[in-house]
């Protein structure tokens, strides 16, 4: 069982520059071809600062921010990543994320729970992302399921 002292654990995940090339690679992987995500002129014509990050890219940014990454934290908790799966993921959107933005993330472990008599552990984390203007742009909600 994961030590409940981890509940409330907060970590500054780090900051990451949102890059056109990274958005393009992500879009290639998921088959997203819309000009808003590839063409800065099209994005600006639609009122965005630069190419727009697609809806699930916020999690990629969180992974890319590096420090205090979720896998590292899970490993510290004793979770074997080879035996872990993603249980839930949620996003709450407050403002657009565009190439050129710098997003800073802070994460907190908000809950630990057991299921199936301790065979499964559920680790819930909440992450807030703010941009270079100090604006809250995104919140992420993640439940990781660890198998003993």
């Amino acid at each position, binding site marked *: 069982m994961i030590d409940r002292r981890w509940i409330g654990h907060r970590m500054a995940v780090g900051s990451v520059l949102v890059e056109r090339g*990274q958005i393009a*690679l*992500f*879009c*290639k*992987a*998921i*088959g*997203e071809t*819309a000009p*808003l995500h590839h063409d800065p002129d099209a994005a600006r014509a639609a*009122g965005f600062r630069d190419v*727009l990050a*697609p*809806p*699930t890219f916020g*999690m*990629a*940014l969180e*992974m*890319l921010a590096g420090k205090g990454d979720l*896998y590292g934290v899970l490993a510290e908790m004793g979770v*074997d*990543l*080879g*035996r872990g*799966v*993603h*249980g*839930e*993921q*949620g*996003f*709450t*959107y407050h403002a*657009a994320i565009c190439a050129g933005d710098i997003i800073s993330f802070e994460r907190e472990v908000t809950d630990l729970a057991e299921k199936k008599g301790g065979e499964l552990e559920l680790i819930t984390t909440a992450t807030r992302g703010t941009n270079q203007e100090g604006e809250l742009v995104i919140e992420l*909600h993640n439940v990781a399921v660890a198998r003993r």
Partner: protein
Amino acid sequence: MTASTLQTARVGDALPQLALDPISRLTLALYCGGSGDHNPVHVDSDYARAHDLPDIFAHGMLSMGYLGRMLTDWAPQSALRSFHVRFTAVTHVDDRVTCTGEVVDISETGGKRMVRVAVTARTEATVTLKGEAVFEAG
């Protein structure tokens, strides 16, 4: 998708379905690079076997990305306020994912028209993701 999609949406409306090609190992490699999720279980079959798995499997988030495409093909991303899914089954290499959505609720809250969409991703075998997205009609 038009600017008035959210204004004219009605409960029960189905979003246009998104059907994907079978997931290839190349797709998983690209998704590892694009998403920053380098968990070897998604690309390294030696690692998978060492952890008693028959093979690598797809990131659940890849299918959430597919659901995101379906949502933004239907209504403007600038109107999207939230998007949440539960991962209910693993997606495997060669699986064909199909994404569907349906408007399940429309409400007026504080002068804002909120459109709630239930979304599902499936492979031929099973439902893999279930969730919801909420748009704010402008």
